[in-house]
């Protein structure tokens, strides 16, 4: 007893300066915060209720985030424990293997407690933080273990090191992180969710806390969460050029693929990148960090400078890995406690649970994709109920800008699109994949109108495959919009939908490989005679990002003559 008194008292000398009231108050606040955030922390187990890691609920309908390397050890069904002591059935919804994130959905309640996200860009080294989770699978009643620490560094980059798991822009903490903490939430001291604890520097001391652990930033997770909700295997992005840091902290462009969008915008070897996605760059790591926090397909602004001055453009991230199925992790990265010869047999999933999973090549869980796709299509088809079926379109247009004084007509049938502007005209056969006769100022415009014609079919859109693909910030509008990918052959159209109306607000289409996308904006949808068509049609200039508007003055649809 004397010995322990001594140890206890050693701590007291540090305290003598701290007013007792402050101490009590701050302690009470911390206890209160932990009490408030604990119910949202999930103990993630496999279907047999064994093994596991951690997770965090993010909405009342049961969506929870964990690590990919935690759920990859389980099949599509899981068991999840909460600190109410109950075990809930859960289903795997979507995965982001590169970012080491997975989305699961817990079932059985519509009022799940959930964490509220903070802004991880505001996190600073020295901030206090709380890591909650299930280290060493200690809590048999599922009340999470809490560890406290400080943020040791921000915007850290951790190499894939032998796998595809790449931690970009992550938060380094000194709170204890041990096996089983993976997938669990990191909170700031106010209890705002700021990250997902997933990785630590383990070296000589074995796979236990070393004082250097890494959390995926919540801002990165939020860029992916709507993609994950669509049941996808979400990919990260890449750009088709390489960079290097130089001695003056410039990020210097090395090689640029001549087929890339950046090349077409004028980016060349030797240019200095100033910012990407709004973040100033001073090193190649900075650049890597920004690229890594966005899903494939995101269009982002790039600013660079070269001999001729400063330039701005937007570029779309291409696919990084393009996984067609769930990739395998090397043995040492698999979660603890998933023995191959586990004697426990998972119970048979209930019929209700089985309904929530559909296997399909290229998807994590197609059930959720189908549901999200129908959510986009159903309101649109309802809106199309009054249009003329199997229609041919005739649309009269004029330029919204009086100065250019364009007058013309668009004529659309199932297989052709014609455009006449003043005394010039173009006719595109849309059955061949090649661009034949397109207006040189907006190549691909006729093809894009054809795709609109395919989308607005009364019965159902005429594409090979329709896939809801999350949400992104649309350029140049800056709005966060839902995405519907419509694939025909190898070509995909990207349709953007807002939450407040059933018809698309924009379209991006790459008419041919390695050419600029045609990007249209649809404004003020209106029912014309037998035809739903916007009152204004915007065309985005790929170089300036300026929108040229066409005003629709008349539009009609009529039954197409059968051939």
């Amino acid at each position: 007893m004397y010995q322990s008194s001594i140890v206890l008292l050693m701590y007291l000398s540090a305290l003598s300066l701290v007013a007792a009231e402050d101490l009590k108050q701050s302690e009470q606040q911390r206890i209160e915060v932990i009490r408030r955030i604990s119910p949202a922390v999930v103990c993630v187990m496999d279907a047999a209720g064994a093994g596991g890691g951690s997770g965090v609920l993010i909405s009342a309908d049961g969506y929870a985030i964990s690590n990919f390397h935690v759920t990859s050890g389980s099949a599509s069904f899981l068991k999840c424990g909460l600190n109410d002591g109950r075990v809930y059935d859960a289903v795997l919804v979507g995965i982001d293997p590169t970012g080491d994130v997975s989305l699961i959905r817990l079932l059985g309640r519509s009022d799940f407690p959930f964490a509220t996200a903070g802004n991880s860009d505001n996190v600073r080294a020295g901030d206090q933080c709380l890591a909650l989770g299930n280290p060493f699978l200690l809590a048999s009643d599922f009340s999470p273990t809490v560890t406290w620490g400080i943020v040791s560094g921000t915007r850290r980059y951790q190499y894939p090191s032998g796998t595809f798991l790449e931690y970009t822009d992550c938060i380094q903490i000194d709170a204890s992180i041990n096996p089983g903490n993976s997938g669990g939430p990191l909170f700031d001291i106010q209890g705002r969710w700021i990250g997902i604890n997933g990785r630590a520097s383990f070296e000589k001391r074995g796979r236990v806390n070393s004082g250097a652990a890494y959390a995926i930033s919540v801002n990165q997770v939020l860029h992916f969460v709507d993609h994950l909700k669509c049941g996808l295997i979400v990919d990260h992005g890449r750009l088709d050029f390489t960079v290097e840091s130089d001695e003056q902290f410039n990020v210097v462009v090395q090689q640029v693929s001549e087929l890339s969008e950046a090349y077409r915008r004028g980016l060349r070897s030797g240019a200095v990148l100033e910012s990407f996605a709004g973040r100033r760059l001073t090193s190649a790591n900075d650049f890597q960090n920004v690229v890594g926090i966005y899903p494939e397909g995101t269009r982002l602004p790039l600013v660079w400078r070269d001999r001729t001055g400063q330039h701005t453009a937007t570029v779309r991230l291409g696919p990084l890995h393009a996984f067609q199925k769930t990739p395998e992790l090397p043995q040492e990265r698999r979660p603890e406690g998933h023995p191959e010869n586990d004697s426990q047999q998972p119970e048979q999933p209930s019929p209700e649970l089985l309904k929530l999973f559909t296997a399909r090549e290229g998807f994590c869980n197609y059930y959720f994709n189908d549901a999200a796709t129908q959510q986009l299509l159903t309101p649109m088809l309802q809106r199309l109920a009054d249009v003329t079926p199997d229609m041919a379109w005739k649309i009269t247009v004029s330029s919204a800008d009086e100065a250019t004084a364009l007058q013309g007509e668009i004529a659309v049938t199932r297989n052709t699109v014609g455009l006449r502007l003043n005394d010039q005209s173009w006719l595109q056969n849309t059955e061949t994949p090649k661009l034949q006769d397109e207006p040189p100022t907006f190549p691909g415009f006729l093809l894009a109108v054809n795709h609109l014609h395919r989308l607005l079919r009364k019965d159902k859109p005429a594409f090979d495959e329709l896939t809801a693909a999350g949400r992104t910030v649309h350029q140049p509008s800056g709005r966060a919009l839902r995405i519907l990918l419509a694939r025909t052959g190898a070509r995909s159209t990207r349709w953007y939908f807002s939450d407040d109306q059933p018809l698309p607000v924009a379209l991006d289409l790459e008419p041919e490989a390695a050419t600029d996308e045609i990007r249209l904006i649809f404004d003020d949808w209106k029912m014309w005679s037998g035809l739903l068509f916007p009152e204004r049609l915007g065309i985005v200039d790929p170089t300036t990002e300026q929108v040229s508007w066409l005003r629709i003055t008349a539009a009609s649809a009529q039954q197409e003559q059968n051939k």
Partner: protein
Amino acid sequence: MKICRRRMLQLTGSLPFWPAVVPALASQTPPKDTQTVVVKLFGAGLGSLDSYGTGVLVSAEGHVLTVASHLVSTGFLTAVTADGRRFTAETVATEPSMDAALLKLKTEPADQFPCIDLKTAVEPAVGTPVLAWSNMFRVAAGNEPVSVVHGVIAASVSLDAVQGKWKFPLKSHVWLIDAITNNSGAAGGLLTDSDGQPVGLIGREIRHATSGTWVNYAVPLKTLQPAVEAMLKGQRLTPAAPTTVAEPLLSARDLTGRFGLTLIPAVLERTPAWIDSVVPGTAAAQAGFRRGDLIVLVGDAVITSESDARRRLAEYRAGQKAAITVSRDEQLLELSLLVPAATTTGR
């Protein structure tokens, strides 16, 4: 003050230790300037010997203090300052008894660097919250800020440690830290208090000779200061140099004669301050001391040994009241001892 301290004793008595330290740190974010005096070192490594380490700028001309590790002995060192600039670093001198090495960055004559002033190094008490700044695990590259880890000074000890199978030769006193500060690449990093005042030089990854546990330690910068000054002058520190300032110590006889208090004799190096007997009618008896009490605090100072108690009591002058906390029957009591005048008959 008295009430305040009592409350804290009750508070911490009923709780784990760590939450108590939180507010001390909470009021401060790490001092930003500290980042600028820490440099990342890169050199030759092999196997479990890392090719990277940490150093601390100790002069405006670009002298860097680090540990005398393989990085220093193999040479070819590159130092990256906090602003991301890269310099070749040359070894000026090493001081093996303190496991210290002094490097000099190859700079332009006009280059000036932010640095710590070793003279301002503080010797915080055991229990003080500290921050450890280092290039651990090479997490930070270029101009990225080094990692910062929080902890508490857990003890002040002399090391009995091994590196691999070799006895670790460090002779100086070190601080043990209750956090994992001594990671790969952290050696040579800076330990500060929570205000950023320099405290220690983070040591290597070594294990305790007996238990095999990893030791997280830092060498006090105050102890290193004479060695660094000698190295800056191009001299070696004379081996016998460790100067211990003789602190006044109350003799055991004085304690009995004047105070009426006899402690259990120092049979071990750190014999706890247990009261062996109290002379009736003396100041000690009036204050309420009893045989078997363990002195744990004199004033606000933690008492870890019998000699500690005599050292602290020597600081009081006659007529002052010393607040002494003892542990009795598993309870903490604060007693007030009126310090008697020096006896003329004593010796």
